[in-house]
């Protein structure tokens, strides 16, 4: 064989290659009938080749693009290739499979168009890996990427396994109960009950009967025995929420229970052994309360075995996009909705708020948006009024750069509106060069209407 002579690949080799690739490949004729269908296409769609050949591509491929924006149709119409369009298909088991699709024209040696070719890749594994990666930032129902929360996530398995009493401190809405649940779920007690009780919600006598139960005849109308939360949580975990709100008298009673691991129901004469793990939580700094003399030092040291401090949301704003995504997915699942995500402007608004109500407030804002925007993307008009007000009136508490950007956006928009969106005149108005204005518009993500003011001006002349 001469060196300069190209080796001619036999025709059947192309078939072998097509059969060996992991991407699905099919071709269609001008009538959208499938003319070839490789092995990977069979696997991904669940349709055997002999059933697919000769059938219309949409009845085999069944993707969300078929009816609305078919990539292959666009290729056949415009003669252009389309690469890596994201879509999903539904296989014969009603499972949605995420795919990326590429399309091009199918031509013969003379350049005559024979039809189209579509290749598609199953992205399920990538999606699964992405979900697994996200799971690294998730414990129970809590998600975070912030270093302070990661320190908690890292030690949480050991804390959960230890059976020690845990004190969780954090502002209201930071997720103290969620963290308690996560500890319970990671602990050997996970199959047993988890009971949460808000200590600040009851007066002493009622709290005593709620926690320890009562015997028949203990007080008027106590006609039969009633077990308390400690008995109900037997073998499991009890969360004593807002423990800082306990009265001085009740602190003594609780101290005795924690020391002796026994309790006595109201009106009872015998002590009952309590096999319950105690988690206490407070929205106040208990150490400060001890210094002020409003919380017993001995009780503080009894519960402060392992302490976890949950940072407020304003100190971990980097978590907001992830939390928003988490809440959208959660509400979509609970309410059967299909909110696609959040728009950039709406997210900017959420990021510029300081959240005195912490994560609960953020979740409520997303729930509010679900009421007003049941579908599509969450936009600023879907958010609660107090957040929308931030557009025109940046709060003094907001971070300085966010506040300055917000003002800058407003000033540029006002100048553009005054000049019927003519960028050059708006730049003159603002006393800056037009390229500076364009740069700022791009940087601040200001969305402009399609009219640009110049056409109107020309007509006026």
């Amino acid at each position, binding site marked *: 064989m001469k060196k300069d002579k190209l080796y001619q690949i036999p025709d059947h080799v192309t078939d072998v290659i097509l059969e060996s690739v992991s991407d699905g490949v099919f071709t269609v004729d001008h009538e959208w009938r499938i003319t070839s269908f490789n092995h990977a296409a*069979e*696997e991904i*769609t*669940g*349709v*055997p080749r002999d*059933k*697919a050949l000769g*059938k*219309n591509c*949409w*009845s*085999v*491929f*069944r*993707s*969300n693009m*078929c*009816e*609305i924006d078919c990539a292959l149709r666009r290729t056949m119409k415009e003669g252009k290739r389309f690469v890596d369009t994201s879509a999903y298909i*539904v296989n*014969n*088991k*009603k*499972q*949605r499979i995420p795919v990326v699709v590429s399309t091009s024209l199918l031509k013969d040696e003379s350049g005559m168009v024979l039809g189209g070719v579509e290749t598609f890749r199953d992205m399920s594994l990538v999606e699964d890996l992405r979900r697994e990666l996200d799971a690294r930032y998730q414990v129970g129902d809590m998600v975070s990427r912030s270093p302070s929360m990661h320190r908690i996530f890292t030690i949480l398995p050991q804390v959960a396994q230890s059976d020690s009493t845990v004190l969780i401190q954090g502002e209201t809405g930071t997720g103290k109960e969620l963290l308690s649940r996560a500890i319970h779920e990671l602990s050997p007690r996970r199959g047993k009950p988890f009971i949460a009780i808000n200590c600040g919600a009851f007066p002493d006598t009622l709290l005593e009967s709620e926690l320890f139960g009562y015997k028949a005849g203990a007080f008027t109308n106590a006609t039969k025995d009633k077990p308390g939360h400690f008995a109900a949580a037997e073998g499991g975990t009890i969360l004593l929420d807002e423990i800082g709100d306990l009265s001085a008298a009740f602190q003594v009673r609780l101290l005795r229970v924690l020391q002796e691991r026994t309790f006595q129901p109201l009106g009872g004469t015998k002590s009952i052994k309590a096999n319950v793990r105690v988690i206490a939580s407070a929205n106040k700094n208990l150490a400060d309360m001890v210094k002020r003399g409003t919380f017993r030092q001995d009780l503080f040291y009894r519960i402060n075995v392992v302490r976890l401090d949950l940072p407020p949301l304003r100190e971990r704003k980097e978590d907001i996009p992830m939390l928003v995504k988490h809440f959208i997915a959660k509400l*979509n699942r609970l*309410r*059967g*909705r*299909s*909110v696609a995500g959040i728009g950039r402007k709406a997210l900017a608004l959420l990021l510029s708020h300081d959240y005195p109500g912490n994560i609960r407030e953020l979740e409520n804002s997303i729930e509010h948006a679900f009421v007003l925007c*049941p*579908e*599509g993307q969450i936009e600023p008009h879907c958010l609660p009024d107090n957040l929308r007000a931030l557009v025109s009136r940046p709060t003094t508490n907001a971070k300085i750069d966010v506040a300055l950007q917000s003002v800058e956006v407003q000033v540029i928009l006002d100048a553009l509106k005054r000049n019927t969106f003519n960028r050059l005149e708006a730049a003159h108005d603002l006393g800056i060069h037009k390229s500076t204005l364009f740069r700022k518009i791009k940087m601040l993500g200001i969305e402009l209407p399609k009219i640009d003011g110049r056409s109107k001006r020309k007509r006026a002349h």
Partner: protein
Amino acid sequence: MKVALTVWENRISPLFDCARTLLIVDITDQTETGRCFEPFHCESPSSRAAKLSDLKVQVLICGAVSDLFANMIETSGIRIIPFVAGAVDEVIDAYLMGAISSSKFKMPGCGTARDNGYRKEN
């Protein structure tokens, strides 16, 4: 009885999840007594199920449907005949004649027991 079909270009829409038009057919004593088109632009499983319930649909004939949508609709008490393909009039006739489960109207690979379970050869 009202039967809904998701339609596209005079045929059954390939995928219920993103179909945009409903054809509502009134049927009395196995005979079609009327039909009308309804826009179907809602996106979420619950809003799609609610729309079908509001229209008092008892049977839904559609193409492929993902399990999330199918479960939501079946929970609303609506019977689904999924993975149907073909021209709208032919599908309606087949339904009236009790022949909708014929392989002629099934999407490829979604009809018989063999079709429903594509098995790897290796």
